[in-house]
């Protein structure tokens, strides 16, 4: 297995009048090499915590997470790329320098940086904006910059935390197509976290449905899409059936999460 999680939980210790928070788990999950796995769940269910643990940005409180047979523990292993929901472009660098950032940090040779950056600019449709600063771009474009910055490092596992969450529906569908293209081209394993059921169904090989906090996997379903697919699968009959099934599973959990939020508010 490319990635495997066994009995992973994450607890936030009690502090300053706040009781201990059980954010995640226990979670068991196995991702096969080259798989596109989507996670849907109600808001606040610990999806982002799951991503942090898998990326090595947070330690699991119990259980174990491993990537390519090595234990991930509080440090980001080589070969993992992450795209966050928030804008993570560096405002002081041009688009080109943003994309080259990781390569420079890895001290890649100059020609290598130039050719890879040029390719990524082209691939993500950013060629005309190479010398622009992020402030001059729209939110969707900035997210492309972040994806390109991850892409040039050729990660073998890409973790995406609601990367299209801040974008409008049409841009999201198109970005979804681009994600599929990128996935086929790189052969990377992808974990996509999203709150959009249609997005998960449309893009993934398998969709994991998470419960309200503490997040656990309630169900995992296979979509059986062909490898060469695009956003037009939304018009297929199977798409409706799958989203229906996910929503049936998710509805009660979303209500519970909503209850939490209202009680908390």
């Amino acid at each position: 297995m490319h990635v495997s999680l066994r009995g992973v939980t994450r607890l936030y210790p009690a502090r300053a009048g706040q009781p201990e928070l059980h954010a995640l788990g226990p979670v068991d999950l196995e991702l096969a090499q080259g798989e596109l796995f989507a996670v849907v769940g109600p808001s606040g269910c610990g999806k982002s915590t799951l991503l942090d643990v898998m990326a090595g940005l947070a330690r699991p409180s119990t259980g174990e997470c491993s990537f390519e047979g090595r234990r991930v523990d509080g440090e980001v292993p080589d070969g993992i790329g992450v795209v966050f929901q928030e804008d993570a472009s560096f405002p002081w660098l041009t688009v080109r320098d943003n994309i080259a950032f990781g390569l420079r940090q890895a001290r890649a040779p100059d020609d290598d940086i130039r050719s890879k950056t040029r390719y990524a600019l082209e691939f993500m449709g950013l060629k005309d904006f190479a010398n622009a600063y992020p402030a001059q771009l729209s939110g969707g474009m900035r997210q492309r910059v972040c994806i390109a910055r991850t892409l040039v490092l050729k990660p073998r596992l890409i973790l995406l935390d609601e990367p299209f969450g801040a974008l409008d529906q049409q841009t999201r569908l198109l970005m979804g197509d681009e994600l599929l293209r990128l996935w086929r081209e790189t052969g990377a394993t992808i974990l996509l976290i999203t709150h959009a059921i249609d997005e998960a169904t449309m893009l993934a090989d398998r969709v994991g449905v998470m419960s309200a906090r503490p997040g656990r996997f309630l169900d995992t379903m296979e979509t059986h899409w062909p490898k060469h697919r695009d956003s037009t699968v939304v018009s297929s009959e199977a798409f409706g059936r799958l989203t229906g099934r996910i929503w049936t599973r998710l509805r009660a959990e979303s209500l519970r999460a909503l209850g939490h939020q209202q009680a908390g508010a």
Partner: protein
Amino acid sequence: MSLPGLIRAGVIVFLVGMLELLCRTGVIPSITAIPPSAMAEALFGILASGKFTQDITVTLRNVSIAIACAMVAGIALGTALQSLPAVRRIFDPLFATYYAVPMYAFYPLLIVVLGLGDLPQIAIGFLLAVVAVLLNTLNGLDRVPRVLLKTAQVHRLGPVRTALKVRLPFAAPYIFTGFKLAVAYSFIGVIGAEFITSNRGIGYEIAFAYNNFDNRVMYPMILLVLVVVISVNMSLHHWEKRLLERRRR
């Protein structure tokens, strides 16, 4: 030029013109002030004669040293303190009251410790400037979004590289504000210190001329300080605007 700019220029021209008129007609006696045109003329004369060239270079050099030291120390201390929250909590109240301390009161002490040369002047300029740089560095570093720090982690940057490649570049506009303050405070510190005890420098020459009722030296030298400080500040302002234009979100 914009309308506010035109009005501003008009106000300045009017005030200078009024002063010129009042001095020329003798309403303001020449023992009190000399006409602005005479100040400018005398300043050109002084600069051309080279009489005070050494004083001017000494002052500008000492101010530059004070600014440079304040920048290096302020940024380094700010970065260190930001990564040590426990230490920072100890010192925070001191920074808040720092500018309530009249730095010049320490001048005798500084002379005893640092001697009679340029060091006491530089020290006062530095002491006035360094905390402004430090506070603005801290302010900028506090605002680095979490997601950028996570991005640094994902790129496997250690703490030092994270500071150099992510935290400080993000904080740059705030540090620039600190730099502008450092420039102003260093001029105040160095020239003020030259007034009190020193045997050279622009501040010393102004004080010397003042004691001798020598308005034809005192006013031109004050004018020189004004011109230097205003042109330095305007170019910094211009530079800052260009820096911020790219980053505006």
